[in-house]
């Protein structure tokens, strides 16, 4: 045979060889089959409740969701968090059953029930296997029509909510998003968030009123998905909800979000922060706006995943962050776009500039075909993955109907996305993403950020509680504390040292006048931690430091400090606990005028001119470490505290700039007595006993 004839045979043989070679490049997509979404049927019950049923008999499971226009936006002013608490308590006892009886009943059949509130809607969901559908329906119906709101359950939920809130408010990302919502929405109810005060204000009457007013069949939507028919669902609904009446609650018109003419930056000062949280964005449009599909594509390109521009540039290229994203919301009212990231303090301004550049670019430059195709493929491709279970389907169908989207929304989602022309994508971005009129919130260390951010846009500076901060305070130089020694009343105070609310030791603090000035003696004992220390300070009649002496034990090691202050110098030696054993430091250094020993701060607190918003920055010598510091004492708020010695109205002041931030609670009125000390980040407190 000639080669010409052998070759084709060889090739033919190769193609069908037992071990065909695997392709060296990824295979292309096979054709997509048309969407096969289960159809749904709708009915309206005599009492006005809308019922939607999605049948799927693949598995004997049923998922139900009952939604009401009763989200957080309907919380009365001063009761923010009410909708959340109503939702939390619906399943904690209803229709004559206690919370334990409800959970035993639903868990007894392997089902689940729970409720939650978003901004617009409150939804209760239940899942069960087919034979237990009636039981689940009954529990759900009782929860919304006859909730018990038992005082003990309210109390427990309130405690849990307050704990959660405390944790949340300590996180800079939460602060950033709260301030962002406020700036974006202004008087519109979407701006509001629960705070400890609003949670504490909620009463059982509030819960009952909210439930009666807003949890009615009119305006509500019941979706049942899974192994059920419309007839069965209707029968169960009519039976379980017999006698439940009520027209849709009146919707008060919400104030429009504020119009913005320009971009500015709200800088929330978080002293010592090593990272900044940045959020940039603007309000957009209502849920049925035709720009939705185009904006979905634009957002995916801009910041909707690990292949997006924000992620690739800020993380992969510049290594400024672990993640940078963008998204836009689709609530019942006006939605909002936002882009956010968390970066090292030093690159905050660069990151913000880059974000703004990308936000401009997505609207001004046509999106290249390859990026757009990748985004489209990802969104179209992943759609079926979001609708696998009965629960998924119930949720998606409910959301679409509640927002007033057309009945064929889910069925046509993919084709409508695929049909958006490229030009429409940048046009939608141009109109809906507005870096020229954006809200920008940065939470971080303003001492390092203020000037650099000012170069990007006008900056408004506030502290973490939202109080305006004069920029001058950022560069406040340490000055001697304005002490008025006449205010110092000789005293003999005893404090109980508490760890997690249990007594673990004591501290006695004695202030006496001497011939030369003042003597302050502090005796601390915390046996369980091996702490036994006595510190004696002497000060001159003008309040200047004279001597510090400390002896004792801490963390099982000896401590001893003997330092003398004279003629602008601190001299002596200090032995303090350290990792490998007590560390001794020789002290011999100049100190700024008015420098206080760090052990003296607590003694001198009553001598300060205490007012709301007061703030002092002073030079301090940490004699135990032998180092000079600048510490800031700032009044952060006012509250009522109860300690063994009584209940007092106090200023809460934070001391920062040292190795351990501390919070002092000093009475608002003279003699400005210290009643409590809390050590930040620990469960340790000292409370005045007498």
């Amino acid at each position: 045979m000639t080669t010409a004839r052998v070759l084709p045979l060889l090739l033919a043989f190769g193609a069908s060889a037992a071990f065909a070679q695997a392709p060296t490049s990824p295979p292309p997509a096979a054709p997509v089959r048309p969407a096969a979404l289960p159809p749904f049927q709708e009915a309206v019950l005599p009492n006005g409740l809308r019922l939607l049923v999605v049948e799927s008999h693949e598995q004997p499971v049923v998922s139900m969701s009952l939604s009401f226009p009763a989200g957080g936006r309907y919380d009365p002013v001063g009761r923010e968090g009410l909708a959340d608490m109503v939702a939390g308590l619906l399943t904690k006892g209803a229709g004559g059953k206690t919370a334990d009886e409800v959970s035993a009943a639903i868990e007894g059949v392997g089902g689940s029930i729970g409720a939650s509130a978003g901004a617009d809607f409150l939804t209760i969901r239940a899942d069960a296997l087919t034979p237990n559908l009636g039981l689940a329906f009954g529990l759900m119906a009782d929860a919304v029509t006859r909730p018990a709101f038992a005082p003990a359950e309210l109390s427990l939920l309130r405690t849990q909510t307050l704990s959660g809130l405390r944790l949340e408010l300590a996180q800079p990302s939460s602060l950033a998003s709260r301030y962002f919502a406020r700036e974006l929405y202004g008087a519109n109810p979407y701006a509001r968030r629960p705070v400890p005060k609003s949670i504490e204000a909620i009463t059982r009457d509030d819960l009952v009123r909210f439930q009666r007013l807003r949890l009615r069949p009119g305006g509500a939507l019941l979706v049942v998905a899974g192994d059920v028919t419309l007839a069965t669902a209707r029968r169960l609904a009519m039976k379980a909800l017999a006698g439940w009446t009520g027209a849709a609650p009146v919707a008060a018109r919400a104030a429009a979000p504020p119009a913005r003419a320009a971009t500015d930056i709200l800088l929330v000062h978080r002293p010592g922060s090593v990272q900044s949280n940045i959020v940039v964005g603007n309000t957009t449009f209502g849920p049925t706006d035709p720009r939705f599909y185009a904006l979905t594509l634009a957002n995916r390109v801009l910041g909707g995943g690990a292949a997006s521009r924000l992620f690739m540039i800020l993380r992969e290229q510049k290594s400024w962050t672990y993640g940078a994203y963008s998204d836009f919301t689709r609530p019942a009212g006006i939605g909002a776009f936002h882009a956010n990231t968390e970066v090292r303090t030093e690159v905050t301004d660069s990151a913000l500039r880059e974000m703004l550049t990308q936000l401009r670019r997505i609207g001004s430059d046509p999106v290249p075909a390859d990026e757009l195709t990748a985004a489209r493929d990802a969104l179209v491709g992943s759609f079926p993955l979001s609708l696998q279970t009965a629960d998924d389907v119930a949720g998606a169908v409910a959301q679409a109907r509640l927002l007033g989207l057309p009945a064929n929304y889910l069925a046509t989602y993919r084709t409508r996305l695929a049909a958006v022309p490229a030009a429409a994508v940048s046009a939608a971005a141009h109109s809906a993403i507005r870096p020229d009129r954006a809200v920008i919130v940065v939470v971080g260390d303003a001492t390092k950020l203020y000037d650099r951010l000012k170069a990007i846009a006008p900056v408004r500076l506030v502290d973490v509680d939202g109080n305006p901060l004069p920029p001058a305070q950022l560069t406040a130089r340490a000055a001697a504390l304005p002490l008025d020694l006449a205010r110092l009343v000789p005293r003999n105070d005893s404090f109980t040292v508490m760890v997690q609310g249990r007594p673990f030791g004591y501290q006695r603090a004695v202030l006496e006048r001497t011939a030369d000035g003042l003597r302050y003696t502090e005796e601390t004992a915390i046996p369980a931690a091996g702490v036994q220390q006595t510190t004696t300070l002497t000060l001159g009649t003008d309040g200047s430091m004279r001597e510090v002496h400390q002896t004792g034990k801490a963390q099982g090691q000896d401590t001893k400090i003997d330092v003398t202050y004279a003629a602008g110098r601190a001299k002596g030696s200090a032995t303090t606990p350290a990792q490998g054993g007590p560390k001794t430091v020789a002290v011999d250094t100049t100190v700024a005028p008015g420098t206080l020993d760090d052990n003296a701060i607590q003694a001198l607190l009553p001598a300060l001119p205490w007012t709301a918003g007061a703030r002092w920055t002073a030079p301090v010598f940490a004699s135990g470490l032998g180092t000079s510091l600048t510490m800031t004492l700032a009044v952060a708020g006012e509250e009522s505290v109860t300690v063994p010695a009584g209940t007092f109205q106090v200023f809460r002041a934070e001391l920062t700039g040292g190795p351990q931030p501390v919070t002092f609670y000093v009475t608002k009125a003279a003699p400005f007595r210290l009643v409590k000390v809390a050590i930040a980040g620990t469960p340790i407190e000292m409370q005045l006993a007498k």
Partner: protein
Amino acid sequence: MRFIEALTGCVILAGTAPAAAQEPARIATESYSLPNGLKVILAENHATQVVAVDVWYNVGSRNEVAGRTGFAHLFEHMMFQGSAHVKKGEHMAMLERAGSEGFNGSTAEDRTNYYEPLPSNRLNLGLWLEADRMRSLAITDSSFQNQREAVKEERRLRVDNQPYSRSIFEEAYTLMDPKACFPYSHSIIGSMDDLNAARTSDVQAFFDLYYAPNNATLVVAGDFQPAETKRLIEQYFGSIPRNPRAIPPVTCDQRFGTGAVRREVKDPNANLPAVINIFRVPAYDSADYPALELLSVILGQGESSRLNRSLVRESKLAAAAPVLLNPFGPRRGPGELIAFAITNQGVAIDSLEHALAAQLGRVASEGVSEAELTKAKNSYRAGVITGRQTPLAVAEALQTASLFLGSPDAVAADFQRHMAVTAADIRRVAGAYLRPDNSLTLLVSAEAAK
């Protein structure tokens, strides 16, 4: 139990429907092997337009030897760094672009899995990516060093930064004796010292031994066409050579009931102290295992569980009190049942420790009620049934039955053996395993040990 509790227990659960004979639908499977040893299991179902590709390698932390821990977990990272025809970063980008969501891998004591749920028309991509990295994972000095750093970062974020993580991810492994049972006495994340001492050639050797088709099972579940799928599997995986060397055997001679061990663990993130009781339990295929699973539900899963009712709601000693059984997955050797109670503000840890011990001991001394047994079975049943709704969950169920019970067809038998558990079985296993002399107790708090 006190009279009133016994009565209340009965009244509360009286309304429970007995097992309403809802059986999970049978999963239709087809199993075969390629000449190179790759096991293939196909489970066709057109209820969704999703298909899951799920590969299990028969390697986990149990295969590691002293001085070489952390390798199995290191691979969870290395496998996403590119292979002969996939550049670094491309694996995830390609899957995202194809519409895959929830793709990932995970390492457990007994196995390592890699999975990607996909829209049906992209099955070919999932199979191709799995084959390319099984054949030709790119192991270089730089990818090894990068991923070693990534593992350290993960450890920092997960183990060091989250409250109680160190106890579950590391301390719990001291439940087993390293001399008798090294495979299960060290953590999955491994020792940073071992990883720092490892060389790239060690990593390559580990890959060659364990990441071979004859040490792997491929499951495809969901919306696919069998003929075309088999053709693709043959085309992509067929030419990957098998590893001819024998896998070193895994031996574990752990004794149970060797005495109570109690230890304090300092965890700076634990702003509320916690007490963790850990008990040794037998392997997944043991006759006692289903009773232990149902016992875990009764004791510590859900609002109506014994620990939640008594410790969280009634006495308020605990903020939470869950019970976990083998949190990282089933084992072919001794495992752990973990009862974990977090103190409420102001509660002394010894009060909670005693209350927890009392509740755990009650099951052995008094047993469980028929209503509790029914609840546990219903909970288990509902979990299995709802799990059947997604192709990925079906794939994982088949893999589990295949590795731990010998065959994917054991899925149905596994369900049945859970339904056959009696109240007496539960009382018996509680007595046999939930004993102080078979336990490790960790007292976790933020302060220095007293």
